[in-house]
């Protein structure tokens, strides 16, 4: 009766045991990573659109306001995709026979829609509402990223539930003055670039409730913040004109950190508490 197994088999047996363990762990880790990978979330993917529309060109270059195209972002759940008309408004005059714009002219002529491919595509059972976010001090860039620096539109964030919850559990980190909603470059206050805010008319829509500025109001009088980093700090631009009809009391508070500003705005805008914001029915119906 000889040995059944060769000498080597001991090492082999133990090794394979260890290996199994390792594989199991590895598998777990992989899956966990996979579910957050761009392959699943589609972050950074640029679907090929009928027209290679460049937000960079139109926003940064031409300085178009977001609402020029996404007209109803403040009024409705959907920001709204611009109708062909919007494109034609300008492109009836300029680039009238650019190759790229052929689909636009097609659509305008035939009356058939331009078929874009949705970049920010939430699951069907999630009810996201632009209206309330932009009116409560969440800037476009907070979710969509620096659209003004995207030649081709892509999805900046995962748009996964955990990502939503990050903010819903602690809105303060992302709140900004409603005057800065469309400011792609808003970086939040810091000790170098403090922000002064004051509560103006009480009651009325939240949007007018608070006014903020980056120019020391005790100085030559308040101006509304102009934070476009990519334009000269003193060159007057359209966003400099203070909102009309708002008298500015002198009682300004100075903020040097996003957290302070966030807390202040949370109170001013009556942001609902995290418990309510992270409650299921807020997004699922």
């Amino acid at each position: 009766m000889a040995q059944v197994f060769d000498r080597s088999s001991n090492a082999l047996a133990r090794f394979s045991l260890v290996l199994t363990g390792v594989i199991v762990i590895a598998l777990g880790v992989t899956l966990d990573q996979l579910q957050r990978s761009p392959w699943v979330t589609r972050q950074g993917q640029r679907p090929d659109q009928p027209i290679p529309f460049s937000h960079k060109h139109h926003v940064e270059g031409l300085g178009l306001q977001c609402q020029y195209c996404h007209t109803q972002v403040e009024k409705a759940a959907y920001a709204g995709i611009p109708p062909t008309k919007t494109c034609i408004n300008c492109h009836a005059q300029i680039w009238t026979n650019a190759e790229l714009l052929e689909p636009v002219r097609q659509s305008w002529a035939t009356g058939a829609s331009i078929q874009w491919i949705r970049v920010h595509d939430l699951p069907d059972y999630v009810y996201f509402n632009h209206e309330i976010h932009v009116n409560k001090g969440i800037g476009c860039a907070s979710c969509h990223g620096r659209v003004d620096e995207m030649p081709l539109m892509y999805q900046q964030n995962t748009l996964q539930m955990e990502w939503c919850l990050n903010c819903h559990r602690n809105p303060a980190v992302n709140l900004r003055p409603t005057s800065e909603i469309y400011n792609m470059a808003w970086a939040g206050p810091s000790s170098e670039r403090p922000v002064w805010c004051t509560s103006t008319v009480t009651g009325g829509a939240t949007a007018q409730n608070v006014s903020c500025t980056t120019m020391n109001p005790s100085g030559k009088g308040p101006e509304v913040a102009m934070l476009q980093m990519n334009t000269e700090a003193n060159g007057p631009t359209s966003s400099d004109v203070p909102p009309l009809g708002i008298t500015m009391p002198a009682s300004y508070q100075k903020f040097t950190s996003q957290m302070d500003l966030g807390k202040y705005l949370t109170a001013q805008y009556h942001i609902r508490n995290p418990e309510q914001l992270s409650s299921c029915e807020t997004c699922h119906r």
Partner: protein
Amino acid sequence: MMKIGNKTGTDETMAEMKAPAGQPVVVTQIAPAKMTLAEVHAKLDGKTGRRFWKNLDELADTPAFHELMREEFPRQAGAGEWVDAVSRRGFLKVMGASLALAGLAGCTKQPDEPIFPYIKQPEDLVLGKPMYFATAYPFPTGAIPVLVKSDSFRPIKVDGNPEHPMSKGKSDAFTQATLLDLYDPDRSQHVLHRGEVASWGEFQQAFATAAKKSSGGQGIYFLSETITSPTLAAQWKQVQAAYPQAKMVQWEPVNQDSSRAASKAAFGSYTDAQYKLEEADVILSLDADFLGGIAHPGFLPLASDYAERHRYEEGKTMNRLYVVETMPTVTGFKAEHRLALKPSEIATFAQALASGSAPQGATAEQQKFFAALSADLKNSGGKCVVIPGEQASPAVHAAAYALNSSLGAVGKTVIYTETVNPMPSEQVADLKSLVADMKGGKVQWLVMLGVNPIYSAPWDLGFRDAFANVPVTAQLASHVDETGAISNWHINKAHYLESWSDARAYDGTISIIQPMIDPMYGGKSAHDVLQALLADPQQSAYDVVVANAKIYIKGDFATSWRKALHDGWVEGTAFTAKAGGAGKSAVASFPAAAAPSGLEISFRPDPSIYDGRFANVGWLQELPKQVTNLSWDNAAIMSINTLADLKLDESDPVKISLNGREVIAPAMMIPGHPDGVITVHLGFGRGVESGRVGEGVGFDAYQIRTTDGLLSVSGATAKKVPGTYDLCITKVHNIEHRGSFAQHDLEKPLSDKDGVYSLAGHEAEERSIIRYATVDEVKKNPNFAHEGGASGTLIDKVGYSPQGEKVPHDNSFFPDNWNYEKQDPSTLKIQNAWGMAIDLNSCIGCNACIVSCYAENNIPVVGREQVKVGRNMQWLRIDTYFEGDLHAPKAHFQPMACQHCENAGCEQVCPVGATVHTPEGLNTMVYNRCVGTRYCSNNCPYKVRRFNFLLYSDYDTESLKFMRNPDVSVRSRGVMEKCSYCVQRIEAAKITADKENREIRDGEIVTACQQACPTSAITFGNINDKASKVAKAKAEERDYQVLADLNFRPRTTYTAGVINPHPELA
């Protein structure tokens, strides 16, 4: 993961996808329904069981496959189970499964979603914000003014028009359901000529030339449904002017001939009666189901006024309702006193009442009833009213006129006005003569406007044969129905939500009917048809209506017209009382009928599908009918004794023979039905022509209906035929759960040997689920609902712990674990806490709320087989409990939906936390988290949770996607669902309020059921706001929680009923 919610509608994609080419012409995008009915029929051949919108994969299956399957599952045979065949979708699900397992997040990559932006976006359109337009639903008994919620120009909800003086924003089951009627994929989509697709132009041409050829319209006959449109009447006048010989006959199987005949006799001219119940202390209904639905003229005002006066408040006299009727109706069971009589007896009773002498051969308790009633009426000093039913004989109407005038009610609680129908007529007589003409070959062209005589005409007329006699027949109808199938011309009719017209409401007010959406299939309306004969046939219905409106719209037309469109009604068009009051008593002219021999048969429009016009509307087919809780069926309805006499058992098929004709119907017992009568409901037994839903449901009672027995007839015989028919009843208590132990109870152990008590009904009171008291009892003990046993409340019984009483707060394991009165630190405002209060005094069990819920919450229709095994999906149901001896029971209605318990049993047992409590106290169901263990349903004592046992929602039928509410997920297979307090409306209101930086106002959030309720029985709001309606209602002593002793702390509470019986009858 598998798409659980398929948010149709204004999800950006959808909205824009559906609305490509700009402007309201959204609908041109609808893909036509995928098969012709003929094809559908072919595919569905020999298939039992119904399923809402069976999808094509299934239709494509071979009959053989279905044979096999049916024998595989005898019980769930048929479509019920085959929501979709083993199909692309089936496999996708399996794939979904495996992929889900692959990606641990349970989500596979979504496919690319396209976006279709507008070319030119309509100015007033804000995607995602609904728009509301006023119009009216023309119904034979008078138009129902409605406000239509439209999402990117697709009507998605039909509700009452709050601005309207008559309806005050209430609505009813039928009106609510017309929405589904609009999107019915089986609607006919083409003009057909001899079965071939033809064009409207061709018809116009043919018709006009024919008319011109004819001498003055000789031989041109119109057979129209009851006309409520002044414009149409005006057009008809023009037609007559042009073609004096042309004839117009109106016919509806369910009509108002009785009142016409009687009023003619009484007033000399056709007259409608309007009742002002807010004035009436005593109401007598002579077979009038005025709380049942719009089948009775003026249902909305009558119901709300009745309820208003039936509300119990200190120092307010409650009205008292007497009902004499045959078929037990909600009206009868709301009544303080109900007398069940055969139709023939009702006439004699009414006449006796008019003459003041007790009817001959009345039983003791009938005498008693009679005495008390007549005394009550007299003592009321004119603050009383007698309402005859439209389906009661002329004699009853005559008697009612007489009574009302003799009691001095006329002018106080009754006014007589001209008829809502601008061209009143006695329809049966007219139909008779028409048929005579047809037989006589006088009729060259028979143009039928929205009627289906082949199906609904009394058989003794031999309409079908006569029809064959007519050279050219043309029908304008929404479906290619029985008549359309054999007419030379079929013109697809535009739905009222697609067309211009006008109509008078009960009070005479004219509403402009304006289209919400372009005709999906280019349908036409009666206006177009008549116009074809006139000078400028190309004039559109719009032009015609405008032209005619100039007559009745006062003041600057442009502005008033715009106002009329906006408000939905034209000022100053309401009827005023006719001069001449009651006129002479016409009682004599309608002698009491000879004593009937044999069984009587009473024909009634069905409470859910009326005369059959709603046969293809799934919501209504599946709706549990008032009182009977029958769904997807009609039955031969009779009393316990009759059942015994005929040696029948429930759900035995019984053959009813009536002068030579026979029909086989399932027998069904209904408590409180008079003996010796069988009630049958019309509108069932449709063929394939009715569409995929209505086909083959129930039996066709028209088969035995004759011209002289339209309402009721005697001399029928009924005998059992072999076999059984499994009735589809959503509450089994009147079959399985009735029985000998019903009265068993420790306190009074009387045992009900012959089983004439409803165990369910009995238990409902044992368990204090239903609580009520008489006025006197309330006066004695205002807190009757919680202590001392008032008549309907059996709490604190010997040998029992107190039933159904709230557990003292601090007895709870976690008394104040969750605080629902948190303060917002910044505003110091107390948070919202949502709650609902339902007044059982006001609930009349009319089902309007249920249909409204269907539309608001995208509730699927599951089909007969599924309902039969108890899988109906309505989030809201009306529980009906029969109290006492089932020969003459009381009944109680209790709307039951999710109670949003603060200590909800369902939440605690869900292993994945798919149902949780929100800070504002909602019990939310998170569909996409649900894995479907169904434990929550087991642990829900109210059994209000509904489960998608199979794939019930229809993801395939295009037209239905347009109908869905974009703010509510469409639930897929394997997911639990339930009433959400219309959370989508709550969220919308919150967003608006937060934007405007204010609190939500009381009444700003209205749930779908609350909105529809004709009697405002339902109040919803913030219970933390002590000023709110709901908080006040809950503060009442009569307010109680159902099953409170379980300490689930439901947020929905009920206000115990109070009845006002006559002392001698109590």
